Structure formats: structure tokens, C-alpha cells
């Protein structure tokens, strides 16, 4: 089955009608990204990595530093600000990546297998962190995962098989939890 070009409706904009720069502004304003491979800038401190999105928003150096410190604190990395990715464990790197994604206070966090490179213990910690962000800050989380354990955190699970939607289940859960897309 071949992937077909489509259209995404987001923040009252149709993605197909937007220019590259308009899409970039949309990402900058509303979206946060978390990747499986962290994608932190090498040889750059955790703090500077988290500051990066704010740089493109044109915020002052002092404001950037302050916001980045707070974001790192909220993912539990106080005292690790000066460390470069090479000096951090996988779980810590993913926390830095999450801090980078939420430092701009996005409406939606897109997570592409955020726990794919982590062991079970670290995975749980990351999922708990993401759930907390969802609950406490009201950030919508859209996550792609292969792991049913991680998908279980979600309120709504959409299952894809070979690019086709197989099922779409909304779970009645006592506590609000992030949405997830599970790829089988």
C-alpha cells in the first residue's frame, strides 16, 4: 500500500495551502517535536539545546536562559544544564529533547517513538513525564509507538497496519491521558 499525499487541518489552516515558511511558523508557534533518536545538537550543552526554539522566536538571551532552565527543571534535569548530549544517558537525552519540545509551550507535542531507544524503566519514566505534561499543562500529545505497553498510556489509540487504519478506540480512563497512535 502506497502512502498518498493528504491534507492536514490544523489551527484553522490547511497544510497543503501553506508555504514552507508558513509551515515553519506554524511549527514554531504550536508544535513540539520529540524523536526516537533524540536529535539533540552534538557538542552543545543541554541548556543551549533547549534554548534553540526560543532563539528562532527571537526572544532575549535572558528570557531564553530562564525559560530553558525552567523547562529542564520540569523534566527533572536540574544540575545537568552544562552537560553535552555525549555526557548524558539515553533517558536524560530524551528528557532534554522533551524540555526542548515544551519550552515554547506548544499546543501539541508530536512524539515519534519517544521510548524506542530506551529500556523499560526509562520508558516508563518518560511516559510518566509526558502524561504529567498532558495533565498539568494541557498539552495534547500525539505519539507513534510499536509498544502496546506505551500505547496503553493513551486515551485514544488508533491502530495502523501497513499504513491503513485498522481500529480507532477511545478509552474511558479515570485520569486524562495522552492520545496515541500505535503502529502494529
Amino acid at each position: 500500500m502506497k502512502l498518498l499525499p493528504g491534507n492536514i487541518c490544523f489551527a484553522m489552516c490547511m497544510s497543503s495551502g501553506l508555504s514552507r515558511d508558513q509551515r515553519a511558523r506554524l511549527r514554531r508557534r504550536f508544535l513540539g517535536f520529540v524523536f526516537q533518536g533524540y536529535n539533540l545538537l552534538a557538542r552543545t550543552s543541554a541548556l543551549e539545546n533547549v534554548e534553540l526554539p526560543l532563539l528562532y522566536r527571537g526572544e532575549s538571551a535572558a528570557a531564553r536562559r530562564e525559560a530553558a532552565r525552567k523547562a529542564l527543571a520540569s523534566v527533572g534535569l536540574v544540575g545537568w544544564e552544562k552537560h553535552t548530549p555525549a555526557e548524558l544517558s539515553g533517558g536524560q537525552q530524551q528528557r532534554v529533547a522533551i524540555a526542548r519540545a515544551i519550552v515554547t509551550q506548544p499546543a501539541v507535542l508530536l512524539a515519534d517513538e519517544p521510548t524506542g531507544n530506551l529500556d523499560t524503566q526509562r520508558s516508563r519514566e518518560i511516559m510518566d513525564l509526558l502524561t504529567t505534561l498532558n495533565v498539568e499543562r494541557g498539552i495534547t500529545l500525539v505519539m507513534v509507538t510499536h509498544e502496546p505497553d506505551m500505547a496503553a498510556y493513551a486515551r485514544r489509540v488508533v491502530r495502523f497496519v501497513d499504513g491503513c487504519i485498522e481500529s480507532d478506540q477511545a478509552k474511558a480512563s479515570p485520569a486524562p491521558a495522552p492520545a496515541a497512535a500505535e503502529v502494529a
Partner: protein
Amino acid sequence: MLLNSLLLALREIRRNLLRSFLTILGIVIGVSAVITMVTLGNGATQSVQDQIAGLGSNLLMVRQGQRQGPGGPGSPAFKEVDAEAIATQIGGVKVVAPEVHAAVTVIANGRNWTTNVTGSTNAYFVTNNWKVATGRIFSEEELQAGAAVCLIGETLRRELFSTAPALGQQLRVKQFSCEVIGILVAKGQGAMGNDQDDTVLVPLHTLQRRVTGSLKVSNLLVSMQDNTDSEHLKASLTQLLRERRKLATADDNNFNILDTKQIADTLSGTTKIMTTLLGAVAAVSLLVGGIGIMNIMLVSVSERTREIGVRLAIGALEREVLLQFLIEAVALAALGGLIGVVLATGASIVLAMVMGVPYLFNLAINLLSFAFSAGIGVVFGFMPARRAAQLNPIEALRHE
């Protein structure tokens, strides 16, 4: 944003210190070569002009004979009255010095030295830019009477008297002794490589009566007033001399007029052309340096594809990525330019010393080379920067 980009760029340069250094080496060499060549060229031009100025400024040298060389046979010598006639009858003339030369051996202080004796008037100090270091110039009585007095050049003073006082001593010139009444300020090497300070100056009448034994004058040195049209003056000078020498309309001039300004222009024109040529050759190496920067920036872009992907994903605009890489290229090139300027200053000072030309700091060429190197950064950084900015963020993130 601009400041941020600059800081980012500097961090990137520091991150790959060795590579950055090798990248800008071409620019460093190019800039320092251009500046050094031009600075030394200007120094050489200056030194030529200084030597010509030593001949006398705004000077016309009137010599007998048709060609520029020793007076040909049959052409009558000048007389002292010719000099007076020129001074009184032609406008725009400051002074006229009649001049007679003789090569003689002089003796003083128990040593002897072969030198050139010049007989002239006090006008000679003006026409040939001679200044008196110690002592005085000739008095009117000494000039009229042909008194046994002389001024000597620095070389002669050194060779004959070394540390002993020269003023008031007797100098033996051929059969007569004359008193040293003055020492001339050293002028150094002349335009033709001769030592101008190896000279003795005596009153014209003294030389005519006691050495050459005739009333002939070999050259007339005409010093023009400032801002005088030398062509016009030369024309009236030619006309006057033709009349005085009773030449028929059909006759060729049996004298020639040498304009030192022309010699100066010709010589300094030659060195200026050399300077331009050398500078142009050096500029080519700047261009090669620019290509080196483009090469490394392209490598850097493909190496940092994922980084660019991350930046685009978190909302960097195309032009922001473009700016980042462009500024990086410009910062590299400008840094190279800066190092080049510093290096060139050192090299110019040392080489100027070795070559014996004056070191003249030329602000224009330093600024120009620096600006040009930064411009090279813009030109050769643009293509790699645009390539980075136009990356597809999704593909860039997948890039291994």
C-alpha cells in the same frame, strides 16, 4: 537574530578549530600577499620619488648638445650671463644656478679622496635641494671674488675627517687650498644610484679661475616657481636660448632641457604598474581562498544535515538557516582577512627593512582587502547556505 547567528557561527568555527584554520589559510595568504605587495610597491614608489626630489623639485636642467648626454662637439657652452638672462627675462622662474663640474682629488687631514667638485652660486642650494647642516652658505663677496671657500658633503666629511671637526679646516683642491665653511645635510643615494653626498661645493668663479680655467658653464639649473606650467616655461626658455645662441630658424637646438618632473613621473609610473600587477596576481590567490571556503562549507552542510533538520523542525525559517550558514562563511572569511592583515603588517615591516624601502601603512588597501575577503565569504558562502536552507526537514532528519 544577527548577533545570535554570529555567536552560533563563532561556536561552530571553534568546534572545528583545525579545519577552520586550514579553510581560511587561503584567505589569510591571499590577503597578506595583496597587502604586502601593495605596501612594498608603494614604499618603492616613495623611495624613487624621494630620490628624484633629491635632484631638486620643479627643476629644469638645461644642458648643451642636442641629446641627453655629454655635450656634443661644436655646441657652445653656456655663460654665467645666460643664467642671469633667464632669471630676469622669463616669468615663473624662481632661481637659476649655473653649474660647472670637475672631478678632482682633494686632500685634507692627511688623507686624499677623489670626488666631484661643483662650482655654482647660492641658487644651487635651492635648485638641488641642498641644506646646510653646520656652517653657512657663500657670501656675495666670496661668490664675486671667487674666494677659496667650500662646503662639503657628508660622505666626503666622513672619509676625510671622520670624527675630527671639519669646519674651518683647509681642503686642498688641485693647486689651491680652500676653507671648509659648511657641511651639507646628507641626501643619500641619488636616482641613478650615485652617492650625492660625495661632493665639494665651491663658488662658480673659484672653480672657473682655479680649476677649469675658462668662463664656460656646463649646465644651467632652472628652478620653477610652484604651480608654474612647465611646458609654457620650457617653450619660452627654448626661445630665449635660441636667440642668445643666435640660431637660425632652420637650425636644431644645440642644447636640451631635462625636466626632473618628467623623470619622476616615468620612474614612479613604472613602479606603480609593477605594484598593480603584483597586487592583481595576489588577488587571484584570494579568489582561490574563497573557493576553499565554499568547499568546506559544502562539506559542513552535508555533515550537519540532521542538525539542519532539527532546526527546521523546531521552526527555523528558510532564511534563518540561510543566514546562519552565510554568516558562518563570512565570519570564517573575515577572520582569515583579519589574520591576513596582521600578518601582512609584520611581513611588510620586515621586508621593507630588508629591501631598504620605507614602510608606508596604507589604510585603504588594508580596509579594501579585509572588506574583499568578507565579500568572498558572502559570494562563496551563499551557495552552500542556500543548499542548507532548502533541505526538506523530514529527509534531513532521516539523514544518517
